[in-house]
């Protein structure tokens, strides 16, 4: 289905109008009550800061995006491998799976300083924090996908004396693709969180200053207008990564989707 420019305009108009009204109200509030810029900068002030720090911001998005992207890629590959091992060995799955679940609940802000102590204040620590936070959604979703049983299809393969390998490659893995896409989408959102938290703790010593570093330094120097820009940039980065993964997933699921929509 193609969307015509007119349809696109009519679906974009309401949120755009709301944005303009909100920004106008924000400006009014700041002017009427004469709010101090370090508490709430005006929209103009924020844009001013964005222009002033544009080089820093663009390079920060680049570094954070790189850490998040690399961490997410490692998570997906490592997560799939782990899930594959879990699906093939019942004893391994039953021993490790409870910990995989439990580790998800450990707050990342508590682990991040430890990672920095162990692996230094560099890019590698940022990526590692990203991997830790985004790995588990991939592992749990893909394991569920690989171990779920479609009885009819299973009977079909058994009737034809399929080997364990054929069953895995021709049935279980393709059946788990939708779960992989779900897991990767969740992981994409978390990867940006992981990268920023990681940068928070690696601090100013890193030459490659990401968004997390700028959040940290903006807070300590009361540059609230810069902080606003960091929040906006981080949001855009998160949305961007999510969209990339979703599009890749949709492409991968081309043959599945129509079937799933009807369910």
């Amino acid at each position, binding site marked *: 289905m193609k969307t015509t420019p007119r349809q696109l305009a009519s679906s974009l108009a309401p949120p755009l109008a709301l944005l303009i009204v909100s920004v106008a109200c924000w400006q009014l509030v700041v002017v009427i009550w004469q709010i101090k810029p370090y508490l709430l900068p005006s929209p103009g002030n924020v844009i001013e800061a964005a222009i002033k720090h544009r080089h820093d911001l663009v390079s920060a998005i680049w570094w954070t995006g790189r850490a998040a992207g690399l961490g997410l890629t490692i998570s997906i590959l490592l997560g799939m491998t782990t899930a594959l091992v879990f699906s093939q060995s019942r004893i391994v799955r039953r021993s490790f799976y409870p910990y995989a679940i439990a580790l998800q609940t450990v707050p990342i802000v508590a682990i991040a300083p430890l990672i920095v102590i162990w692996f230094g204040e560099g890019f590698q620590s940022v990526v590692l924090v990203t991997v830790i936070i985004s790995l588990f959604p991939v592992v749990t979703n893909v394991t569920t996908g690989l171990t779920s049983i479609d009885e009819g299809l299973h009977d079909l393969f058994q009737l*034809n004396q399929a080997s364990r390998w054929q069953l895995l490659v*021709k049935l279980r893995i393709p059946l788990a693709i939708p779960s992989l896409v779900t897991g990767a989408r969740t992981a994409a959102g978390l990867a940006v969180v992981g990268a920023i938290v990681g940068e928070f703790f690696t601090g100013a010593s890193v030459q490659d200053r990401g968004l997390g570093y700028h959040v940290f330094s903006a807070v300590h120097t009361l540059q609230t207008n810069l902080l606003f820009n960091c929040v906006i940039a981080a949001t855009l980065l998160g949305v961007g990564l999510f969209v990339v993964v979703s599009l890749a997933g949709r492409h991968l699921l081309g043959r599945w989707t129509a079937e799933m929509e009807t369910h």
Partner: protein
Amino acid sequence: MLRYGTRPLGVGDGMISARQIKVSFSPQRSPVLDRLDLQVQQGEFVSVLGSSGCGKSTLLKTIAGLIIPLSGELQVGDPGSEDRTEIGFVFQDPTLLPWRNVLDNIRLPLELRSVSVESQLEVARECLELVGLAPEDASKYPRMLSGGMRMRVSLARALVTRPEILLLDEPFAALDDMLRQQLNEELLGIWQELHQTIVFVTHNVAEAVFLSQRVCLMQTGSGRLVDEVEIPFPQPRQAGLRAEADYARLVDSVSRRLRETVR
């Protein structure tokens, strides 16, 4: 005691010989099949008729080797042949792989047997034609097909190994009446051409009488075949048979005998 086609040639042995078969899924519950007897001669078309939940599907899966009976004697296949007899199985649902197109779904059983790709495709195309699908349907995906066409693909997949025995588990139950009648006629045509031994499970009396040479009635609760009706109409049967008075009388008589098994 289980034997698959390795028995020395004996008088009175058919293609399928089940004696005193007992199948139970849990020791606490009464057995699903209990001391069941069934003899099917080579090239015979037999229907197993019974209400839902009486164990018809279990019987079919037991013959196919998907369920191992607790006790009894089961011999499946040509007693004189050393090779394992090929069995085609058509499930109640089409059970197609959504990520494979029609032709790739049909050739799956051959693929699992490591037949060369060229002959896989060749035989799959023959079977596609045999079940009344057009060559241009070969590249379509299951989600693009109607329920009737999916069932045709499922039937073609069962035929692709050139089975001597064809087992059908209420294959047309989900289709509308007109389509079911049409597919019944086509199934008879395929049987006329290839002379497989067919066991057809259904709860539809008219369908069983129209298709088969012999109808076995299964009793709900006892897990046994309790009655048997010979269907004398000559082959090849045409659609016009349904309009004949003898046919209507026989359907009525089988229906009454089926009701008696419930009491």
